[in-house]
């Protein structure tokens, strides 16, 4: 059964097509961005890539900084594979896959220094802003990593820092006009390998048949994060091919992000 499907996808690709209609076989499905999702969030966004939908929210609070970075704000990323999104997702604490997703998004943002954490210091050693980026999958039709990074960056771009009262307590209902200071806007592109095929923006059926995947998180001309997943592997030549394709696609995603 599965072998037949694999052949179907390969044949389709060779004829220039994919399961879901796209501009061409190497382009993303239609991307729809809506924001905000919640007016109570500092920033939030809904990203749909084809039938995949994720919502991402940014909430902020003050906290004591870490001892090794007394003048830097703190960022945290979590991901919920809500059971609403997929018959295979179950209630309960995040499983390995959700933790992996959150950590890949975290690394992409952290390693590119997208958030200027030094500017989120309120009082050195005493008080800094904490930025929580929470990702909820609403419908899973594949390519959750790319959608999540996109959603996180839009939510961050749109976020307004809450006001503080005279004692320095956070006024959660009042937002200042200040944005979260950003240095750059990274994106991620994941490539799925099916036999000798390399698919951009794979949908769930394609992901299930794939041998392996690799994600590249990029900002500008640099690669900041990378993650291989799945049961298969890549030859060095295949790796270089994926890298090239992902860099090209990330540039397109960055262009899209710059418009927001």
């Amino acid at each position, binding site marked *: 059964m599965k072998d037949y499907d694999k052949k179907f996808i390969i044949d389709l690709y060779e004829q220039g097509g994919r399961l879901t209609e796209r501009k061409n076989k190497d382009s993303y499905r239609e991307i729809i961005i809506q924001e905000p999702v919640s007016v109570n969030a500092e920033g939030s966004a809904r990203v749909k890539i084809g039938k995949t939908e994720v919502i991402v929210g940014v909430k902020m609070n003050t906290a004591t900084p870490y001892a090794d970075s007394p003048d830097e704000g703190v960022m945290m990323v979590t991901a919920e594979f809500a059971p609403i999104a997929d018959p295979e997702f179950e209630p309960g604490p995040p499983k*390995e*896959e959700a*933790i*992996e997703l*959150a*950590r890949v998004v975290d*690394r992409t943002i*952290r*390693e*590119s220094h997208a958030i200027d954490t030094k500017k989120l210091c309120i009082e050195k050693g005493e008080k800094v802003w904490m930025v929580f980026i929470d990702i909820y999958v609403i419908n899973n039709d594949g390519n959750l990593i790319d959608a999540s990074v996109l959603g996180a960056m839009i939510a961050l771009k749109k976020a307004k820092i809450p006001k503080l009262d005279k004692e320095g307590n956070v006024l959660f209902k009042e937002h200042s006009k200040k944005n979260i200071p950003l240095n750059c806007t990274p994106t991620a592109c994941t490539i799925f390998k099916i036999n000798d095929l390399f698919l951009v923006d794979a949908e769930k059926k394609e992901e299930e048949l794939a041998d*392996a995947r*690799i994600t590249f998180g990029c900002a500008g*001309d*640099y*690669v*900041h*994060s*990378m*993650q*291989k*997943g*799945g*049961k*298969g*592997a*890549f*030859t*060095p030549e295949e*790796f*270089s091919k994926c*890298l*090239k394709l992902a*860099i090209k696609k990330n540039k397109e995603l960055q262009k899209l992000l710059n418009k927001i």
Partner: protein
Amino acid sequence: MVYKKRFDGRKFDELRKIEAEVGIIPNADGSARFKIGKTEAIAGVYGPKEMHPKFLQNPKKGTLRCRYDMISFSVNERARPGPSRRSQELGLVIASALEPVCLLNDFPKLIVDVFIEIPQADAGTRCAAICAASMALADAGIPMKDLVAAVAVGKIGDKICIDINKEEEDYDGPGGATDIPIAYSPVENKLTLLQLDGKIKDEDLVKAIKEGIKGAKKIYEIQKAALKKKYKVNEVLNE
């Protein structure tokens, strides 16, 4: 200060001192210890055995499950015992680094459990874990196409360094530190682990992978030698 010489005086492509042995945990079906510099990993394999709960069983092939655990006193600041988000992600990526070489079709519904403990850490623990685990799987007699060798490649400043230690990982001079752990199977010529954090141009990344493969091939020879040492007895009997 530009990074011209490695902190510990090694050549840029030089690995730290490696110790490798198999069969260190009598209770396990297979086990191994892999030490590279101060970083040490021990791995124990249990299985193939029946998988519980039953609904997780795969009727077509066996399941490989890895648990990576950092011992609380393996690092300077005590690590809280028990699973962390980091260790859960690493369990997953380590399994996906090993599975490409494991022939799991022979035992449907069953599971192979790989438990990895890190008693001492000086960077590159996931790579040491993969090295130890692949030797332990071989020691357990799990059918495999090849061993997997792993090494942490780094771009420290503008230099590609093989098998970076903690001091290099924390380098914050010009150019910073980019950490690129990889795993490689020589027989298959395949990269089975690819991770990265830091900042690197694509052409440097391709070069780093190439250098990393060279380092992994050296480790591979040491892994093979360790396995041969334990099973030397059989060779003598054959003569």
